[in-house]
């Protein structure tokens, strides 16, 4: 009986933690995406310049990649850090000839109107030819995207949000192939280069 209980518990822990290696949902999410890239549904985004674009999916070839961060522009902490990191990466991707682009995607489209997106873009010096600051045009499409990418956004009770901040590497065909810490911009860029080569 005790042996059976022990085996059942071990099996449950093994399955839940990816073989005892990943004890948090975020670590599990990254490992699963690395092992088997998730495919994100295509969605329309409105950018800070007022353009509507569909960055991935819809039969597009995977010949380009996006480094995506999920943000909300009124965030005083991590989203601002993400913006600073992207400002540095923006200079590095100049040599990629447009194959790799940066995409800041707001999950708070109601508050992040065009003006808010433009202010965020200007504050961080975003060059719209390399770095797009956007928000989804549809709330339903946003929820689908968050679910597919495994991004969890929760109300922080102070008018803001807490979320799993990361850089997501998304190919042109919608495949999410890597997730990296905000401080791992170089690694994310390298991952995108590897998939494009």
């Amino acid at each position, binding site marked *: *009986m*005790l042996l059976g*209980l*022990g085996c059942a518990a071990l099996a449950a822990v093994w399955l*839940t933690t990816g073989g005892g290696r990943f004890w948090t*949902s975020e670590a599990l999410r990254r490992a699963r995406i690395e092992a088997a890239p998730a495919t994100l549904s295509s969605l329309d985004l409105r950018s800070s310049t007022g353009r509507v674009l569909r960055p991935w999916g819809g039969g597009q070839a995977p010949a380009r990649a996006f480094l995506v961060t999920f943000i909300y522009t009124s965030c005083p902490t991590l989203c601002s850090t993400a913006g600073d990191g992207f400002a540095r990466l923006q200079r590095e991707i100049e040599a990629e000839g447009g194959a790799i682009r940066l995409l800041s995607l707001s999950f708070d489209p109601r508050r992040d109107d065009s003006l808010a997106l433009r202010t965020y873009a200007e504050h961080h010096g975003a060059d719209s030819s390399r770095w797009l600051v956007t928000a989804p045009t549809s709330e339903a499409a946003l929820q689908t995207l968050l679910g597919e990418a495994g991004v*969890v956004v*929760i109300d922080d009770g102070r008018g803001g949000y807490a979320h799993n901040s990361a850089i997501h590497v998304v190919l042109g065909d919608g495949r999410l192939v890597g997730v990296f810490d905000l401080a791992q911009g170089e690694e994310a860029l390298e991952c995108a280069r590897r998939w494009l080569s």
Partner: protein
Amino acid sequence: MRSALAELRTDAGKPRVFLTAIILLVLVACARRWLERDMALHMLVEFPILLAVGAALAWTTDGGTRGVLARYNLYGLSGFTFVTLTLAYWMIPAALDASVRDGWVDGAKWLTLLASGYLLPASFSLAPLPVQGLMMGNLAWMTATVGLVYQDAERQLCLYYLADAQVVAGKGLVAAAVGAGLVWCVWAVRRIHEDEGRGFRASQRNAVQAVRSE
């Protein structure tokens, strides 16, 4: 108040305890979303209530003290092991997140916690004090350790809970571990004194009988 509690402990009080447990279970089920929105409420209110409801259901139905279940719960070891493993599992951040995200995982959590509670009364009555001490010590140590990890973590461990809530839950787990350990110690000391008293009275009776028979 005392007489009411004493009445509940008798067989006559069992239907009332059973009904109270069922009502509590329904109330917790209705408040599930609210309870699980906060990490401390989730781990320090919902978990203990489910354990208590399971224990109350076991006590009112004599669950596990007789019959098949008792045969597989020698010295309460299987029961205590099940409780320990269940609580350990649901304190893993990834498991806690999954229970918030997926309804079927939450269902599994409810069932295993209720089953743990159901096994507790029988396990306590079947286990000698040293076994109880070992199991309770292990449970308290494990809970306190998880609580310290939650408090000291540099980042948010659960995606569905804020870092602040994680610290509060961590402190609560340490307090719960220390509290449960102390309650058990007090109860164990009282039981030892009672057993010694019973043993002393029995030896006195035997001595009197021996004198009379002479």
